[in-house]
């Protein structure tokens, strides 16, 4: 249930940007890595509760989950890591590096100007 504290941080980031932009935020896109352990439903629910009676009330939050990527040490191919089939799909090599997980990022906000 760390989605509640993440939702609070998302709310604060969007509110701060809204103050700067002097508009009403209606859509926002965030992205996170698969190891971030963010549950979409829990985050959306927490955000809905936190944003009630604020400038963010009713805002549509889009969440993009980014898979873990790996890079093959044999052929340099970058692929989506699957724990149940941990090998390069191109050359079947099992020697690879996991690439760093994508951070929790507020990507963009759409504002409505009056």
């Amino acid at each position: 249930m760390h989605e509640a504290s993440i939702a609070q941080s998302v709310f604060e980031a969007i509110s701060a940007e809204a103050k700067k932009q002097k508009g009403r935020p209606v859509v926002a896109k965030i992205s996170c890595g698969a190891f971030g352990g963010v549950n979409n439903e829990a985050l959306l629910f927490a955000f809905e509760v936190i944003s009630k009676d604020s400038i963010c009330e009713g805002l549509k939050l889009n969440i993009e989950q980014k898979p873990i990527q790996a890079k093959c040490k044999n052929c340099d191919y970058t692929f989506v890591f699957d724990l149940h089939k941990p090998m390069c799909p191109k050359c079947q090599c099992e020697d690879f590096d996991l690439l760093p997980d994508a951070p929790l990022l507020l990507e963009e906000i759409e504002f409505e100007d009056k």
Partner: protein
Amino acid sequence: MNMRKVKVQQKILIANEEFASRNRTFLAERKIPCLNVISSPGSGKTTILTKTIQELKGRVKIGVIEGDIQTDIDAQRIRTTGAPAFQINTDGACHLSAAQVSAAFHKLPVDSLDLIFIENVGNLVCPSTFDLGETAKIAVLSVPEGDDKPAKYPAIFARAAAVLINKIDLLALADFNIEKVKADILKLNKDVKIFPLSAKTGDGLQQWCAWLYEMVRNKTR
């Protein structure tokens, strides 16, 4: 009505990361390694810590920051070993934050310590997302939890510097394939150290303590 798209590209956990970075500087200036211990509730974190403190007594001065939703039971258990401990209560939150840890550093006699443990709130998921500014994360998995945990909760095993497989005294009673667990962990993290041990019987504790001792010596040298 006009719609306007604004690119933001801002890290969401920036406030936590700023505190984490301050903690990292605080520790680096004092050359004290700090380990963030993460596991499910009941895996034996506190028992491992009390046994580790006893094993390294006279060689490594250890302080502990305890994180729990409620009570100071764990800090009391640590203090019975003679080591200083400070208890954080999160009042419902499922993980420690870097700001809480930053405040806790000042409640410990930090300048007389060689090593700090942070025992995070018992939870295999949430604590792995929140950087505390620690030197390294340590994951604990105990035999009764089952051998599917690295596959089901990969994040913490991918990020840990060491994994302790605790309660190996129960291996004969449980369907726990320790070789499969080791292989699954190594798939996620090939540089990780794996220490099978039993905090209860003391089996395997020495290898883990030797690793800690080496780390402390390299840091303070």
